[in-house]
């Protein structure tokens, strides 16, 4: 008897995702829209940011609202390399990543002694501390921030003025790096340790997992990748000041995109960003000019609808649709 089920739904979804990813490099050749490219760049950036957060928040189960600090350190690393020292951003990007990882370990060590809500509250406070400190710290530009000078565009300076293609390919590179690292972690022993800590710290420890080391390691990797995203953000906007990067607003975006897409899954951050960012940008473009925050209200209502109807995130919605299709398929087969 021949088995007609060649491929199951999960595999089909993965193949679809891979096909979309494979086509992404071709987007600049078919998209004639400058704003459309901007939206796609933000989707890739925010997907990468959310994936960076997903390491500690999703896989390791430690909900951090402090990631805008690491994002900001990365942004300032690149920004200072260009604006303060007049060099290329690359050294600053690397320094920002290392510094973010070090800062993450230093501030997380005492915070990890707290659990659950208390850990989350502590990370809230850290954002405020860094925001205030950077606002008055003249060496990093204080409240005036850092404004990029007009210098030669191109990959060396990692900036383009009149086209978006360069930024798009860099965002795609960033996305591949961050998702690649998380994919590798997922199947590596460290990934299993992280999930073990998330499911039950005491149980994991009883099996010989050093939960503190795992959490600190996850936080360091997560912070370094958040900093990498921050350095792209500053190169894209050509300006950085503390409210732009080190704010609770920015921290919330890390969390919101991941939770909306599906926390603790590889595809979740991409799905979250792919829905949330176009929603944010297009509601603003269509209705922002009306004033009165109509765009923000519509944006907010849509998020509430998604969260209430499907707490597991968009990945839960897709799973629901998959099940519904399978059920219908089964019914059709039974009826034949």
């Amino acid at each position, binding site marked *: 008897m021949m088995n007609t089920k060649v491929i199951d739904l999960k595999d089909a979804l993965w193949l679809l995702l891979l096909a979309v990813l494979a086509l992404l490099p071709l987007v600049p050749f078919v998209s004639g*829209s400058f704003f*459309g490219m901007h939206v796609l760049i933000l989707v890739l950036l925010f997907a990468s940011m959310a994936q960076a957060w997903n390491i500690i928040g999703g896989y390791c189960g430690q909900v951090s609202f402090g990631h805008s600090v690491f994002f900001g350190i990365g942004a300032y690393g690149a920004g200072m390399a260009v604006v303060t020292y007049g060099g290329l951003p690359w050294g600053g990007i690397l320094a920002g990543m290392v510094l973010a990882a070090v800062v993450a370990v230093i501030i997380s060590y005492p915070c990890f002694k707290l659990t659950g809500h208390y850990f989350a509250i502590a990370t809230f406070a850290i954002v405020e501390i860094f925001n205030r400190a950077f606002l008055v710290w003249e060496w990093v530009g204080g409240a005036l921030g850092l404004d990029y000078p007009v210098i030669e565009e191109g990959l060396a300076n990692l900036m383009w003025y009149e086209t978006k293609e360069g930024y798009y390919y860099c965002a795609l590179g960033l996305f591949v790096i961050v998702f690649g690292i998380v994919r590798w972690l997922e199947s590596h022993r460290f990934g299993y340790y992280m999930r073990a800590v998330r499911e039950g710290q005491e149980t994991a420890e009883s099996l010989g997992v050093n939960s503190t080391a795992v959490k600190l390691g996850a936080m360091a990797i997560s912070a370094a990748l958040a900093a990498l995203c921050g350095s792209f953000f500053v190169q894209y906007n050509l300006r950085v000041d503390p409210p*732009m990067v080190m704010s609770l607003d920015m921290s919330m975006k890390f969390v919101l995109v991941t939770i909306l897409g599906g926390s603790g899954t590889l595809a979740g951050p991409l799905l979250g960003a792919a829905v949330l960012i176009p929603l944010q940008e297009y509601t603003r473009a269509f209705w922002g000019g009306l004033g009165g925050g109509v765009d923000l209200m519509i944006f907010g209502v849509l998020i509430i609808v998604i969260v209430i109807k499907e707490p597991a995130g968009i990945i839960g919605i897709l799973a629901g649709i998959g099940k519904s299709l399978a059920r219908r398929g089964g019914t059709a087969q039974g009826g034949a």
Partner: protein
Amino acid sequence: MSRGSRSFVRWFILAAALCLLVSPLTGAGPALAAEKIIKIGTIFPLTGPVATAGQRCQAAVQTAVEIINNKHPEIKVPLANKEGLLDGYKIVLVHADSQGKPDVGKAEAERLLNQEKVWALIGAYNSSVSKPASFVAERMKRIFMCGSSSSAALTQRDMKYFFRLAPTDATESVDFVEVLKWLNKTKKAGIKTLGVIYENSEFGKHAAEEAKKAAAAGGFKVVADVPFSPGATNLNSEVQTLKGSNPDAVFGAVLGADYSLWVKTMKQAKWLPKIVINYCSGYQDPVIAKQLGPDAEYFMGSSGYSPQFASLMPAVAPVEKIFKSKTGGVPFDGNSIQEAVAMLVLAQAIEKARSLDPDKVAKTLMENTWDSPLSLGGKVKFVKGGQNVQAKSIITQLQNGQYKRIYPEKMADAKIVFPMKPWDKR
């Protein structure tokens, strides 16, 4: 919830997500009308802590466009007496919300120029937003008219397509110090020390730096330097710092709702210096002044316009009538009127250049002195970097809910109440 409706919601959300994902790939924007339209983009903070100020700036530009596009013989400003520009061109506005955020403002500037194909931009109220948004316009060789952002740094960048109407915080600081000297001379005020309170932003930080420079040059000692985060929910420690240093005079760079909070917190702390002079919007905002009621009295600030300037600027009244119809009766303030002037001067330059070539219009803007009955000095003249050197303001004081003209003396319509009346004597 039934399985059927839950399934519907899932499909609906998936369909919406797919639409949103696909839409970036299409270049579709609103279709451009083929003939005789000049699209101008506006970028203002229509949401966020200074939303009301941003909405009024937007209404001011709309008012100017209504005057340019239609015949208004009763209005005595250039271009009011004819319809449109360049033999029949009409201006169409495309509005954007910066939310007061530099990255959003930059993205909106790019969208307006690339997607909506606007010919020029007007905005962006917040100095920190005007900076990156005008940078985008400059790179694309498009004109950026900046009505009310006051950071002096904006016109120190040597840009070719950037034009700012408002006085800078540098010139305002010098004026403020002149007021202190005048009081010391004429009223033996004994003002020696100064406190500066400012929001920690591009605008506030610059204003404070200029204040400190001007104070040092004028021989005053700065004894309190108090920054705060914009959108603050509590200013107790900031006011206590001021109270502890007890300066004779305070200069404030405090916007929007923060201004109300600051004034109320000083009342709670039962403290006032002899004189308070403010930069920009918080003090100038007629709605905030009304909300504060008697508590707003005797504070001072610089202003390019308030309804009490009517006798100096008779052309404003009929224009303000149109403006009020868009703002629910709120009159112009010093910031919003500058945005209307920005639009009117740009239109005059297009008309004079007889061209829609941004280079030619920018050159024309720079080379001429423009009649501007909505400006205090009656003229607008730009110099290298784009600053309007004819920008003038008057120091006013709120007395009985009205912005009374105090300084320069030759323009005054009331005597200063000095020192400010203490809270318990009001």
